[in-house]
């Protein structure tokens, strides 16, 4: 029973991490002595909106066994573009940002797919270049966004605990789940991540799928950045690696493996919500900041343990020795 669950980590990992974090959030009144309010939930969802779109883009590329490090650069560029071009019309700013993000993603996807380049160094180069471009656009300074109407609108409370920003982020996950679940795209994506050569032989148009994937990932990251800078009423040219690392944590808790071929949008949603809830739990219970880092580290170590084939073999060997059933010894790696 347990073995069967562990063999399906794309469901087990997000379900378990979301359950643990949700129970912990519900239990916070015992530590803080105050009731959990709708305000707390709303804050947690705002945190989810902040990293959700980047996590979704990164997660989709990771299912196909690619790693799009540049999302954190596109995130910064999208925020800066939206602030600089969306002074009179917020919608125009978002469109410019998303268009630029999609174009950058398409170029990278084209390079990676056509030349069969490894994605990590390519997207690292793009990330550094985009960071430079964003900084050059603003002279290295934060830019204030003066359209206060847009700032109020994106964060206005809807349905007690939501805002247009968090609802839009949720909608992106729902659309991704419907598209990947309802068409053959989802299976193709996992096939590309699991065994690219076999996918190609089976008739999957790998190149086209990869270009599309990086385009979507770039567009989502730029959208996330644009909405964030509207919300903050300013754009920061360099936010460091933190958004990328947190998104990677969300994706990994979402049951996606860096070995590729595994993962579902609904799992990514659970992962992103888990990360946002952890930050909120630490805020509510007034734990010191470093406990967030230690919690992420502990959760990731569980993911590492589940994902490491060598560790599984070692456990199997120990078990085999304990029960002296040699059949376990030849468990496939």
């Amino acid at each position, binding site marked *: 029973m347990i073995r069967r669950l562990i063999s399906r980590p794309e469901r087990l990992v997000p379900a378990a991490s979301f359950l643990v974090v949700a129970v912990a959030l519900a239990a916070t009144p015992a530590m803080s002595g105050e009731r959990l309010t709708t305000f707390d939930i709303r804050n947690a969802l705002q945190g989810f909106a902040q990293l959700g779109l980047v996590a979704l883009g990164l997660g989709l590329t990771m299912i196909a066994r690619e*790693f799009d490090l540049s999302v954190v650069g596109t995130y910064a560029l999208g925020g800066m573009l939206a602030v600089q071009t969306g002074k009179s019309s917020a919608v125009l700013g978002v469109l410019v940002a998303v268009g630029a993000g999609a174009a950058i993603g398409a170029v990278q996807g084209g390079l990676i797919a056509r030349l069969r380049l490894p994605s990590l160094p390519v997207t*690292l180069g793009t990330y550094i270049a985009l960071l430079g471009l964003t900084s*050059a656009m603003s002279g290295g300074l934060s830019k204030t966004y003066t359209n206060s109407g847009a700032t109020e609108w994106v964060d206005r409370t809807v349905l007690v605990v939501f805002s247009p920003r968090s609802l839009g982020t949720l909608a992106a996950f729902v659309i991704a789940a419907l598209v990947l679940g309802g068409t053959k795209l989802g299976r193709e994506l996992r096939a590309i991540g699991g065994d690219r050569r076999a996918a190609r032989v089976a008739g999957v148009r790998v190149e086209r799928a990869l270009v599309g994937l990086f385009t979507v990932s770039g567009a989502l990251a730029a959208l996330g950045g644009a909405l964030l800078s509207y919300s903050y009423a300013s754009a920061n040219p360099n936010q460091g*690696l933190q958004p990328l690392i947190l998104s990677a944590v969300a994706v990994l808790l979402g049951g996606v493996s860096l070995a590729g071929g595994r993962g579902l949008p609904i799992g990514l949603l659970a992962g992103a919500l888990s990360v946002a809830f952890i930050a909120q739990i630490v805020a509510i219970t007034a734990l010191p900041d470093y406990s967030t880092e230690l919690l992420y580290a502990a959760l990731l170590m569980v993911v590492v343990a589940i994902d490491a084939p060598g560790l599984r073999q070692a456990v199997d060997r120990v078990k085999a020795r304990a029960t002296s059933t040699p059949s376990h010894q030849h468990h496939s790696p």
Partner: protein
Amino acid sequence: MTAANSDHREAAAAARAEEPRPGGGGATAAGRLRWRRPEPLDIGIAVAVLAIVVAGAMTSRFFSLDNGRAILASTASVGITAIGATLVMIAGSAVSLAVSQTATVVAMIFLSTQRLGLTVAIVLALVCGAAVTALQGAIIGFWTANPIVLTIAAGFAIGGVATWISGGATVYPKGTGYKSLDSTPLGLPLAVYVLIGLALLAEWMLRRTTAGRQMYLIGENLPAARAAGLPVGRIVVIAWALFGACIALTGIFLASFNTSANADLGGTLSLDAIAAVLVGGTAIGGGSGSALRTLGGAVLIAAISDLLLLRGFSTGLQLLVKGILVLIVVIAVHLRATRGRR
């Protein structure tokens, strides 16, 4: 899914094994004598160097002793870490995202143990850096854990524990022994000599020692290395331990230079080191690369940044050029490695 995945990896590794190995030391005397068609990477590097020379000649003060010193000095701290990162990348573990945090923690340990004397503080810092990093290497080498996931986790753990112990405060030295590390014999910072010495040592180790040769083999084809009975786990741990010692040295020099250490000391060290290794032409998949070329990559990046700075370009534009340089070299290295197969 695991079986299919391992098949795929074996296939990929087998395909990689057929590639010519740039810088793998395979060139024979006869091969060297034959006229060779210039490779895209060679042309790219030649064009880049030529462009720097021309632009440098048109920039006042670029070709001066002082500026040469400035370039080398700015190479030192990133370069030392990049030498260690080269070993790990050659051995197939790609990258570590815990470098900044490790350097920060080592710097804090180094400064807070100054009372015990300089030698003890250095040894303690080196041992801590090497141990923490070797532990990650052990999980990767023996259990084939994914390096990116593991080092993200390690980065959180190291950063979290450091903030916990230091209380988030800046660490100031309790002694003055560290000041001798900030000296500049013959006008160059001590760190530059350490960098050059380390690069030579690492190059010698990679080419002449059993452990070094085995790092290439493991990075090139892990299943074959396992099948051949190479001590994969042990060699990966050695590569990571040396990487950790290099990170620790960077931390020590950063601490001596800044005379204090806070949580941001490591800065963008993780990615800067990877950029230097990549510009040096090491392939991210492992199995090829050289420490001296990484040194060249680090100097090239520093020289370009310096040139742009002298010509009055902003930090943003310097970053933009650096990113494009990484992209171009990565594409050129890849095209060279796969030429003939495509």
